[in-house]
């Protein structure tokens, strides 16, 4: 296998996986995922969160197996298994998916800002500034992207504290009795939930950028568990606070919850909350953007800088086509399906293929 080795100044310590994985997973989803899972599984949806958490943990372990001791990344593995041309094609499709997520996350957050802050804002200029920011972060290299993600985790952690209101004002009885929904629905609710836990597939891209990658498994797993816990408590909070039917009519239950909080100098916390949560959005979008650019950069001969600027322009122009709430919902739904197939279908398949391919090649090498 022809290995890709990044510059040592761009590599980060395995401990930071704790932050990277968490920052990729927490995005726009945390504000609205309760609605999606409660639609299918009702108040018992918290069980699906735990189940999804367990499943994604397995995926993380599989990813570690795929990457292996040699710290091979997605592109290397693809070309190793499927040959040069077909491998590159697969990587290209994958990076298109990453790029789409990166832009969708941004656009869907702009939606929130339009609804809560400025209904008649010029989104083109706003999008332009945001993409410039993402470009500025990404061009700094992986270390800067991770640094930004690192700080964003503290912001989301700070914001998570403000779910306390639901625990003081809510009714725990809402959740009882447990197992009120048929198990099939609980399983089905894992599909929208897995979109919220997407982000671990990026490990395949940035694996070579991590020092002593193999020792990072514990950090990645604990990060995944931590994210699951955050989602779990968030869902419990919302379920305690809202009626099961009511949740379906609220687009962003968390924002509605923040409305209730007031301090001597802040009357409506959701304004502060939305502004601060944007940091998490940018971190997620930026990690996806960087990963996508890294894929493009690896399969073509363009420099990282050129391809990033080119794709940023495409990203800005994408907003001309996505201007409707329904379109955003549709794209999100499609991407979540693709992501689920990728996580639970493609990555295990890739693992099996990798095993077979390396076995065959070893046999040939011995002959």
């Amino acid at each position, binding site marked *: 296998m022809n290995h890709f080795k990044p510059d040592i100044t761009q590599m*980060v*310590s395995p*401990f*930071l996986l704790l932050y990277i994985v968490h920052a990729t997973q927490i995005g726009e989803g945390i504000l609205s995922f309760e609605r999606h899972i409660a639609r299918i599984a009702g108040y018992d949806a918290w069980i699906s969160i735990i189940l999804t958490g367990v499943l994604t943990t397995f995926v993380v372990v599989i990813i570690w197996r795929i990457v292996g001791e040699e710290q091979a990344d997605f592109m290397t593995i693809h070309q190793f298994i499927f040959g040069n041309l077909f491998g590159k094609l697969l990587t290209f499709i994958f990076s298109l998916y990453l790029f789409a997520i990166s832009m969708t996350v941004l656009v869907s957050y702009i939606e929130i*800002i339009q609804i809560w*802050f*400025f209904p008649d*804002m010029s989104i083109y200029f*706003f999008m332009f*500034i*945001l993409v410039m*920011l993402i470009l*500025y*972060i990404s061009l*700094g290299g992986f*270390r*800067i992207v991770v*640094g*930004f993600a*690192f*700080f964003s985790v503290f912001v989301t952690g700070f914001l998570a504290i403000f779910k306390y209101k639901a625990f003081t004002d809510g009714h725990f009885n809402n959740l009882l009795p447990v197992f009120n929904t048929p198990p099939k629905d609980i399983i089905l609710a894992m599909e929208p939930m897995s979109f919220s836990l997407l982000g671990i597939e990026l490990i395949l891209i940035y694996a070579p950028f991590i020092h002593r990658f193999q020792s990072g498994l514990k950090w990645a797993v604990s990060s995944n568990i931590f994210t699951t816990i955050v989602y779990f408590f968030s869902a419990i909070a919302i379920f305690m606070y809202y009626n099961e039917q009511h949740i379906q009519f609220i687009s962003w239950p968390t924002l509605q919850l923040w409305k209730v909080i*007031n301090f*001597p*100098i*802040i*009357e*409506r916390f959701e*304004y*502060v909350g*939305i*502004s*601060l949560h*944007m*940091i998490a959005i*940018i971190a997620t979008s930026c990690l996806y953007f960087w990963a996508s650019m890294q894929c493009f950069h690896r399969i073509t001969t363009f420099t990282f800088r050129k391809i990033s600027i080119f794709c940023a322009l495409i990203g800005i122009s994408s907003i001309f086509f996505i201007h409707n709430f329904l379109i955003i919902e549709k794209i999100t739904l499609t991407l979540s399906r693709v992501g689920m197939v990728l996580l639970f279908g493609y990555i295990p398949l890739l693992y099996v293929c990798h095993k077979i391919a390396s076995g065959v090649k070893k046999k040939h090498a011995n002959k």
Partner: protein
Amino acid sequence: MIRKKFSHKRNQNKQSKKDVTNFDDLFHVMQASDDFKHFKLGNINNIEVFYYQSLINLDKIEVTLFEKLEDTKIDKIEVLENLLPFSETEITSDLTTIEDKLLTGYMGLKLTNNSQNILLIPAKFEVDRQVAQPEIEFSVIGPKLAFIEDINTNINLIRKRVKLPQLHVKNVEVGKVTKTNVAITYIDGIANQDNVDTIIQRISDIEYDQIMDSSFVSQMISDNAQSPFPQLMDTERPDRVSSALVEGKVAIVVDGSPHVLIAPTTLVEFFASYEDYFLTWPIASAFRIIRIFAVIFSVLITPMYVAVLTYHYHIVPGDLLGTLISSRKDIPFPPILEVLILELTIELLREAGARLPTKIGQTIGIVGGIVIGTAAVEAGLTSNVLLILIALAALASFTTPIYRIGNTIRLLRFPFIIFAQMWGLVGITIAAMFLVTHLLRLTSLGRPFLEPLYPPRWRDLKDAVIRFPFNVQGSRPVITTATDKHRINTNRTKLKRGKRK
């Protein structure tokens, strides 16, 4: 093309220097200046004396030279050297040495036989101010000494505190015309040799004609010269420099500058006053936290005012909103204009106060602060709530111990104000994100500027936001990658248990 031109010029320069082939030519060049004096001495007038009057201590000539040489007959310059009671004399015929020495306060003596040998006698005219109290980094407790303009005095102040033969001083001459002496100081065996080499390399590579102050060097060798943030710390306190040297950093002393540069440095160090080490650690930590809070407050408060009063008045609770509205009800401007006018006024006051002599500066402060402030509110041009906020923000920006970063912080809030006007609180967040990214991308001598926050190095947090007591500061900062990582034997700092006192 340009490079070609330059190299051509350089060749010309060399040629013009080559024209001076013997001492007489040099003598002619120097004679053109009126403060270049020369006369003949001795019984038979065979000793020629020449010097730059402005560089020479005239007492030395009058007292010693005339007395000794009044009636002597000397025909060999070596005899003359032995006769004169000066140390550090030198006999040479090398033209560049003669030129350099004459221009740094030496006197030249020559016999009128045809010999090219010249005796150089040091007679430097030393004039410099006395070592005085620090003015920018003043501290109530602790030593009250500051660097002055003379490089030797400055190194002396450092050496007095670090009594080690391993304290190395490497001299580099910078500046094509000014030929400024720059001393790179470090402790061999503690400082990382890579850092030292990088600094020496960067300083010797400086291509500029004049180096008037250490800030020239600082701008030319910092990693990102376009950044508003200083990436090398400049200080006027010898204790701070000595302490940095012991931590494994490298100090750059520039002749003619009362500020010494320290590298590598991090952002949090700019908010650490050296006085923090003179106070007990809980108090020192509290002051540090106040300072960091002050900086954040100073940058964010006026943008918040603009954002909240332009877009998000829902955020303000009812009672507070009443106060705000009553103070703003007669103001004819939108919040952004109001803020910009007042911010500009404060900046004007600061700039005027800094440029004027102390006494007039005080008057200006009173006139500006009290008269203009009150009048502006009474005239109904600005609200008094904003006046309080702006004054507090200005005050907060002056709490930074290093003056240079204070400037950065004061200017930083203008982009924030613009973003706040565009998109309210979201705009402020965007501006903050740009700022954080910029800080993340900054490096000081190739080391991350935001360390120990990012990359997270828990061991360096012991002296970042909170200054922990001395007995836990067992290792040198990771950022310096010191050759000798351990400061003290931490086993011996532990309290002995089970012993009664």
